[in-house]
């Protein structure tokens, strides 16, 4: 894996006005980098801002504050339509709900080819069709499926269509927003393996958003843990699983069930209480070990370090 930065997110904030005076800080100043060719997992409980982060990066929302750089170019600054389009082609998204995210009135062919049309990637109908058929086969469907409608497919097949759709425009970076959480467990594995295979063959970079920790560990090279709009811990996935430091990460990991009755009998869930933190100063994101970052205050930093060295 090369260590070239593909995406740099700096202090990204996304606040939503919910009333005259109330603001929801869905994402509140997070910073991370994603390297070329890796899979970055983003985990956290429902409503912690994972999906919002993904959507802000791809500009489905206009960020309140902060920087997103893709290959060194600022994404959120003012840009011409043509530049935006080009950026849009390089970055694609796979959505959570394969039932709702495909237009029911369009054939699979048209759904997949729409991206091609928007970016003018094919010059004639035959080429367009050939491209779509190729994509369908790449995600494990038949080319005969092209003329059918989304409702004729099962959930897993639909998610494959969603993936083919994202791949259509030849992106480099793909944001997978809980791509498997709406699927059966048996299908989840298929889809995750498909994503892995595609990555191996074409060198895609993924931002994989999920709340299923075991699945995230399986697919990700590095993992970021989010809690209430903030990134609380970030590390290589093995490191994070072996040496979780932040209490919230520990709590999350203790919640993973395993198909092992002995283990399950002894599994103790540690619950997380935000009040346990040292409130003497604003916590900062600090590097506790090489490439292992935690959100903590100075005092906590020392405590965590001691704990790690034990």
């Amino acid at each position, binding site marked *: 894996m090369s260590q070239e930065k593909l995406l740099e997110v700096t202090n990204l904030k996304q606040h939503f006005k919910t009333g005259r005076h109330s603001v929801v800080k869905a994402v509140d100043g997070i910073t991370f980098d994603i390297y070329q060719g890796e899979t970055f997992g983003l985990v956290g409980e429902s409503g912690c801002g994972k999906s919002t982060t993904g959507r802000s990066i*791809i500009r*489905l929302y206009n960020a309140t504050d902060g920087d997103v750089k893709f290959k060194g170019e600022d994404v959120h600054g003012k840009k011409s339509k043509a530049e*935006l*389009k080009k950026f*849009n*082609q390089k970055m*694609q*998204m796979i*959505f959570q*709900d394969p039932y*709702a*995210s*495909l*237009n*029911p*009135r369009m*054939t699979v062919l048209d759904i997949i080819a*729409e*991206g091609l049309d*928007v*970016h003018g990637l094919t010059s004639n109908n035959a080429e367009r069709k050939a491209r779509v058929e190729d994509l369908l086969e790449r995600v494990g469907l038949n080319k005969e499926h092209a003329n*059918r*409608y989304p*409702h004729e497919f099962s959930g897993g097949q639909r998610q494959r269509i*969603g993936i083919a*759709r*994202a791949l259509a*425009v030849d992106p480099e970076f793909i944001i997978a927003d809980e791509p498997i959480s709406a699927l059966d467990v048996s299908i989840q594995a298929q889809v995750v393996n498909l994503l892995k295979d595609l990555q191996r063959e074409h060198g895609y970079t993924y931002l994989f958003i999920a709340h299923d920790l075991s699945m995230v560990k399986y697919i990700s090279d590095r993992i970021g843990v989010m809690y209430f709009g903030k990134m609380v811990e970030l590390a290589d996935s093995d490191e994070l699983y072996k040496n979780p430091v932040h209490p919230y990460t520990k709590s999350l990991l203790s919640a993973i069930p395993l198909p092992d009755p002995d283990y399950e009998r002894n599994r103790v869930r540690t619950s997380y209480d935000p009040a346990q933190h040292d409130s003497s100063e604003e916590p900062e994101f600090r590097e506790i070990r090489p490439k292992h970052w935690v959100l903590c205050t100075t005092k906590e930093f020392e405590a965590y370090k001691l704990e790690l060295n034990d």
Partner: protein
Amino acid sequence: MARYILQRLGYMILTLFLIATFSFFLMKMLPGSPLSSEQKVTEAQREIILEKYGLNDPVPVQYARYMGNLLQGDLGVSFQLKNQPVTDILLSRIPISAQLGLYALLIGTVLGMLLGLIAAIKNNSWVDYSANIVSVIGISIPSFIFAGLMQYYVGVKLGLLPIAFWGTWQQAVMPTIALAIFPMAIGARFMRTEMIEVLGSDFIVTARAKGLNNTGILFKHGLRNALIPLVTVMGPMAVSLMTGTLVIEQIFSIPGIGEQFVSSVMTDDFAIIMGTTLFFAFFFVLIILIVDLLYGIIDPRIRLAGGKD
């Protein structure tokens, strides 16, 4: 598909037969006869006329004769209008009503859709609220009030347009507007609600992620998905508009089928009432068939068995 249409045509004929039967017997149960308003007819003349038109026969016999004639396309003759065949009367009046109705429907629907679309895009802004007020007014105020107001101000006071009759395009303007207001209001309301819902759905986000611009999203993904409920209400509305509107035709003295219907009911002109009813019914089932077929085109999920797969 062909089989489905054939099957539907079969049901259509059955429906029409039942409607013909029902309305025939209902008509016979009505008190009065076409002759009751004619004072100058003597008892003997009345007998002769009743005998001539077969009105003295038992009702089942009359029914059998009527249905027999109907099968041959003969709707009988008018009592009131000197033995004119009902078919001729209908054929001379239907095109006028249909033309007026079609104009009103097209103008109303297109304007309504535009209004609803704009309201949906500018959701919860002053544009949306004004569009809403316009449609509430359009739905709640009956068309004859608009008709009367227009006749008085545009026709009489300003003298811009003729206030009655049918023939030139100037004469068509006011009745068309008066008729178009209701479908416009309904169209706007349905369009707005549906569009807001559709624009909030996930596949719109997908389209945006593909890089599609707003216009593309609106027309390619939005409009088509919002059309179904609109087609459902607009179908029957097309029937009621194009089969003659009693009040508007009366107000503007337009020689359409609605005006004829009213005067026939007044004079108990039984053959014309029957003929008009059957025509309405025929038109209605036909439009419903068309609407059902349209559903399949607009929404592949309701495409019917035997369609292309």
